């Protein structure tokens, strides 16, 4: 960022900043539960220290004439005791508001970030630094205070999409068409229902390897199978089940960026072709995953991601108008085409010196109207946390999914954020 007092959003951030509403807040939560209650003062100081390390998080979202942008600010965000439903009730476009917030509640430190700022990987780096700084103050763990060089800052704020954008390659051709939608009524504004299932990773790994599949692929298959079962029960006309699976591009293209750097692939099972057995679903997904998850194919997805932003008519459109049309375009071409989303942040590694103090690391997906239920997965130590975020009170997908996991002989512990539970 250098001496600049503002910086551009990456192309995913541009889209997310335009679709923000009181329901689709684009906020996702990453939280670390510690072994002892959180001390707010230490946490505040830790946050300040973390912002010293990542100065590009000390920003506010502003509206430019054509696009939104982040402007540097001298103000410091304050940690708050958790009081609202997760991932909701924060208007980041309001003057003086930050595109994220830090909550504490009992033993938990929760970081809620807008997707316009960063993705899961960037958020996790911020969270682990925050927890490290906090534990340094609270438990006096040894922390080497590092100084960041200008080059490092530049590489952490680079727009990796642009770096790997190749304008000469064709964008992927994937017409998804209409997909199955869960018939869920929206709950009132301000409510977001979370269901977290806690599973032993080793047990799940055993099950997955029995099908010669990775855990991620195995869970996607269970997810699709649950959706197929629901479709069987509720829908008259069968439609394909399409899942939106974000892929962390840092695993394929070298980048240190802390901004968005992911693309979405959309594995699908066409229910119109007949009944699928679990083995068949796994087989299809294996082919789909291995076909798409190569740097060559993924660079096509980068092309598609950047292409939209480069479209002249869109660039010339004033940003308030973009804000009006973006939600419809997003729901028509984006989320409208998926049945649901499943995002796996994988095995979380926290800094070694902090691990003894951290009990668990969880993440919740951002609420969205197009896909009222979405799920996000993290694994920490021996446990996997599968969190469903739901804008409806109806838990048909959660029920079907965890019952299926249970029927595979894997024990599941369920937690929810609903007060009546």
């Amino acid at each position, binding site marked *: 960022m250098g001496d600049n007092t503002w910086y551009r959003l990456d192309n995913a951030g541009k889209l997310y900043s335009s679709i923000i509403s009181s329901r689709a807040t684009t906020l996702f939560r990453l939280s670390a539960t510690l072994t002892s209650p959180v001390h707010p003062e230490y946490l505040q100081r830790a946050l300040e220290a973390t912002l010293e390390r990542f100065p590009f998080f000390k920003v506010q979202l502003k509206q430019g004439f054509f696009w939104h942008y982040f402007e540097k600010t001298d103000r410091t965000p304050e940690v708050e005791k*958790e*009081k609202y439903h997760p991932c909701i*009730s924060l208007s980041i476009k309001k003057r003086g508001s930050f595109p994220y917030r830090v909550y504490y509640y*009992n033993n938990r430190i929760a970081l809620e970030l807008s997707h316009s700022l960063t993705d899961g990987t960037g958020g996790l780096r911020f969270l682990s630094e925050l927890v490290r700084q906090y534990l340094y103050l609270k438990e006096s763990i040894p922390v080497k205070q590092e100084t960041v060089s200008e080059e490092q800052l530049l590489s952490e704020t680079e727009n990796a999409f642009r770096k790997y954008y190749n304008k000469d390659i064709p964008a992927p051709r994937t017409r998804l068409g209409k997909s199955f939608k869960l018939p869920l009524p929206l709950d009132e504004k301000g409510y977001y229902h979370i*269901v977290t299932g806690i599973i032993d990773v080793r047990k799940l790994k055993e099950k997955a390897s029995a099908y010669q599949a990775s855990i991620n692929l195995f869970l996607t298959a269970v997810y699709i199978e649950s959706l197929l079962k629901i479709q069987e029960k509720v829908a008259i006309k069968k439609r394909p089940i399409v899942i939106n699976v974000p892929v962390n591009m840092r695993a394929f293209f070298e980048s240190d960026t802390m901004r968005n750097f992911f693309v979405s692939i959309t594995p699908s099972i066409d229910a119109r072709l007949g009944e699928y057995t679990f083995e068949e679903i796994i087989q299809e997904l294996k082919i789909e995953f291995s076909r798409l998850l190569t740097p060559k194919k993924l660079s096509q997805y980068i092309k598609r991601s950047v292409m939209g932003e480069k479209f002249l008519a869109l660039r010339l459109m004033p940003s308030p108008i973009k804000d009006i049309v973006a939600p419809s375009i997003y729901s028509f071409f984006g989320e409208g085409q998926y049945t649901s989303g499943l995002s796996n942040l994988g095995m979380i590694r926290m800094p070694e010196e902090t691990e003894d103090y951290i009990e668990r690391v969880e993440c919740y997906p951002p609420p969205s109207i197009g896909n009222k239920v979405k799920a996000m997965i993290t694994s920490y130590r021996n446990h996997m946390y599968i969190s469903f975020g739901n804008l409806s009170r109806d838990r048909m997908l959660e029920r079907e999914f965890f*019952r299926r996991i249970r029927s595979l002989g894997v024990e599941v512990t369920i*937690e*929810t*954020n609903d007060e009546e539970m």
Partner: protein
Amino acid sequence: MAYCPKCGIRVEGDNRPCPLCSFPIPKVNEDDTEGLRARKFPKAANPYPDYTRRVLNRIFIFTTLAVFVAVSLMFYIDYFLNDRFTWSRYSNLSVFAGWVLLFFSFGYVQSYYKVIIGIGLNALVLLFGLDRFDGTLDWFMPLAFPIVTGVTVICIGYWSVIRALSVRGFNVIGSLFIALVILAMWVNFFIQSYQSETNLWSWIIVTVLQLIPVLLIMLAVKYVMPERMKQKIARKFHL
């Protein structure tokens, strides 16, 4: 730790419904752990109703000020040009009636009965003024008064019926049709009698002819329409 007998999943607290299927999970822990268990989440507040109220209040105050300025300005211009109030009485009364309508529609009065009566009175005052300002009462008594009073009474009746219904669903639409038909009859009657053309028999026949298709539609909805279609309509109209 307790298990849901239907889902097979494990939950921390017992003696409560299963979070996935609402099946009552029995009490299994001998000692009362409820008080000891730390809450995982706070009792969440919802800021949106307050926020919406604040925005509405702001809009209402701004509109009130604008109405006040406009009314004063119109009175002033009218008096300045004509040395008395002429056209401004009409425009200002209309603007004022609009403001009263806004007041009721912004939810400052909670009871629907009061809102309906308030809007009815507002309409009566407006129409009385518009008719009376030229010095005579022409159409207010034979037309405006009975029609507005009738509409108010029908609305109150409709709302009372809706509230009293034990099963809402299609009954809401059915009663709406009945209310609309009665309303049409009522309005028709006074317009025709104002034009001195009322033939009671033809009026009754026309009314019955109006009612028959409505009745047929309702019967068809109740007995002929397939359940799936009913559910779809119920879903679309949030019944």
